[in-house]
């Protein structure tokens, strides 16, 4: 796991993405953090979020996502 960890397990949409966006404010452009979320809506919504906010997301394994801040 890289950088800070945002643990949103057990939380339902839209909370995981809100917590991710808040944590990302503290991260420098180019740096990454890890999001843990077991909400079934997260997988699809993270890629839509990345497209809309022009950031990068990579799923590492079940419930674990590497998010890189690009702007």
């Amino acid at each position, binding site marked *: 796991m890289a950088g800070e960890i945002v643990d949103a397990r057990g939380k*339902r*949409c*839209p909370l995981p*993405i*809100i917590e991710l*966006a808040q944590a990302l404010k503290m991260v420098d452009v180019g740096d990454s953090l890890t999001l843990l979320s077991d*909400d*079934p*809506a997260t997988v*699809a*919504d993270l*890629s*839509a*979020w990345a*497209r*809309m*906010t022009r950031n990068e997301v990579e799923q590492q394994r079940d419930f674990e996502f590497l998010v890189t801040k690009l702007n």
Partner: protein
Amino acid sequence: MVPITAQFQAESALHPAARALLLEVFDQGWADPRKLHLESRRAAILLQEAKESIASDLGLSPSEIHFLGEISLGFHLGIVGLLQPDSRLVHSSIDRAEVLAIAAQFPASWEMTVSNSGVVALPELQPNDVLVWQSLNAETGIFPPLPSGLDAFSGRVFVDHTAYPVQASEIPTFSSALWDSSSWSGPKGVSIFALKTGVSGWRNPFPHLQQTVVPSGYSLPLVLASAVALRHWRSDEANNKTKIAELARRIRNFISENIPETDMIDEQLNVWSGIVSLSFLYVDAERLQSDLADEGFTVDSGSACTSANLEASHVLKAMGLLSQGNIRLRLHHHVTAIQIDAFLTVLKRLVEKQRQ
């Protein structure tokens, strides 16, 4: 209860013309049209007239039309009736749940992916394949563009027209097709199933008598009301088309300028203006929906947070569209610019409140 200022849900009240007719036909249309009494003969004439009227409005021949009560029967008749033991059932990831349920039971099925611009990835089709095609997607308002390979396909095609009364001739390669009366403000509980004249290889998947496609398990008065509603809906649609398109554009422009981080379908695509789907990042759709209702605006939602099974809309997910904070507006014919403006002002305030 807050009085409803504007109703943007998919359902609509019965068309006034259909409603006026309904009471009258419950008096006239009670008899069994297959029998020989005077009343039955009158009922048979009414049924034939309704068939001819609907046939002409949907671009069918009256003999191709079969009326159904329960709509899911239409999916079974239309799809399962075309399948052979060696068929492959080819359908898309944004089809209705009824189609996905049939595909899940059939051993050889192929799910076509759909891009976020509504382009369906048609595989190389075999002559024995049965293709399911949706003319309009009810959650996004997209008319999926017809793939070029479809013209050349000699196999069997079921077309799902249940979201919008598309003319049969728009997709001429169909073998069977299904329409839903409630999509033209007709009564619920009437669907139109069509089997194209001369289609080969269809067999009735249900136990049946005397080769009838469906037993006459429909309500004649509702069928007559549906025919009248369709005729009026078509002219209402033609008369209000420009207004609805302008109002849809007004919504999009307002959102682009005032509510950032909103996922909307690209308006350059072939989208029906009557459906506007909006997804707001960082917004809880359930809360938004109930806050809007408190202000007198009713909307639908495809978000996980609003559905009983906690699963987001399979359509939004399949197309890579944001499923959180999703609301869906149906712009009915009678909607006004004043209602839209009032709605947008409230919407902006409620989204901002949640994002604070």
